[in-house]
């Protein structure tokens, strides 16, 4: 581990999640009500989004009129997911290595699957290294 005085390599490069938390989460998604987090016997974590609007904001009330509005909504979804995971890490119940064994579902029927599909598409980076000759 690095010493406490060593600057975090990421502090200068992001920190926007903290701002997002401060400015966007007047109504914070509540564990047990808006989402559920379950840890299985084998150590796997399961996050279930039970109330889409409470976790990500209601798309019906957010003007998603243009392409850039839609990208901003995707951005917000990413940060909302990371917000929930961060709360878990902050309370010592999740470690970075546990992310290998996490599964996320949404049991709220009042959502459009397109949002999940597009979010998945823009964050699924497939590692395809060029073949060395």
């Amino acid at each position, binding site marked *: *581990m690095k010493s406490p005085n060593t600057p975090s390599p*990421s502090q200068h490069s992001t920190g926007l999640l903290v701002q997002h938390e401060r400015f966007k989460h007047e109504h914070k998604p509540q564990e047990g009500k808006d989402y559920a987090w379950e840890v299985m016997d084998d150590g796997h974590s399961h996050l279930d989004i039970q109330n889409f609007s409470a976790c990500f904001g209601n798309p019906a009330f957010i003007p998603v009129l243009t392409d*850039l509005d839609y990208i901003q909504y995707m951005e917000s979804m990413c940060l909302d997911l990371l917000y929930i995971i961060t709360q878990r890490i902050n309370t010592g119940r999740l470690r970075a290595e546990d992310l*290998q064994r996490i599964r996320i579902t949404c049991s709220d*029927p009042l959502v459009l699957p397109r949002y999940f599909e597009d*979010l998945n598409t823009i964050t699924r*980076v497939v590692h395809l290294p060029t073949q060395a000759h």
Partner: protein
Amino acid sequence: MFSPEMWNGLLDSLQRRTGLLTQHVLLNHKSMPRAGTDYAWTVESGAHHLDIKDFNACFGDCGLIHENMDYIQYLESMCLDLLFIITQRMKSGQMHAGNIERLTIGCSDSRAPIHVLDDLRRITTIMHPPPQAQHSITTTNTLYMSKSQLTPGGPHEESQHP
């Protein structure tokens, strides 16, 4: 140059909705990933493909990350970096939101840490409906219809709502 007041006003206006991507770009991208050098975007028969050619240039070096929070912040930054690249494409009119469904993203940089890419995908993949609900969906037959099941003239997306 912006005065402190102008700068604060700019940030305030950016923060009204999310605007964090714009802040991310303003604050973190002194060296912006460059199309053609750090990443390549190709379009073939309407299918878009983004290739990350230089992982570090696009996402930053993750070699110094040691703590849980650092790692989460790094994943956060990766999300915003990907959205930054896509946003540039949209702003130049070369892509629309509707094209996202025909987008694939690859990374041809052999130095890329695979576990980081895997973790990013894992924390942003939301299964809907959850697997345990599959049975009830089959039996009810009207709830949860995926977009691929919708056909022109068929049920509207709203029909998936009970």
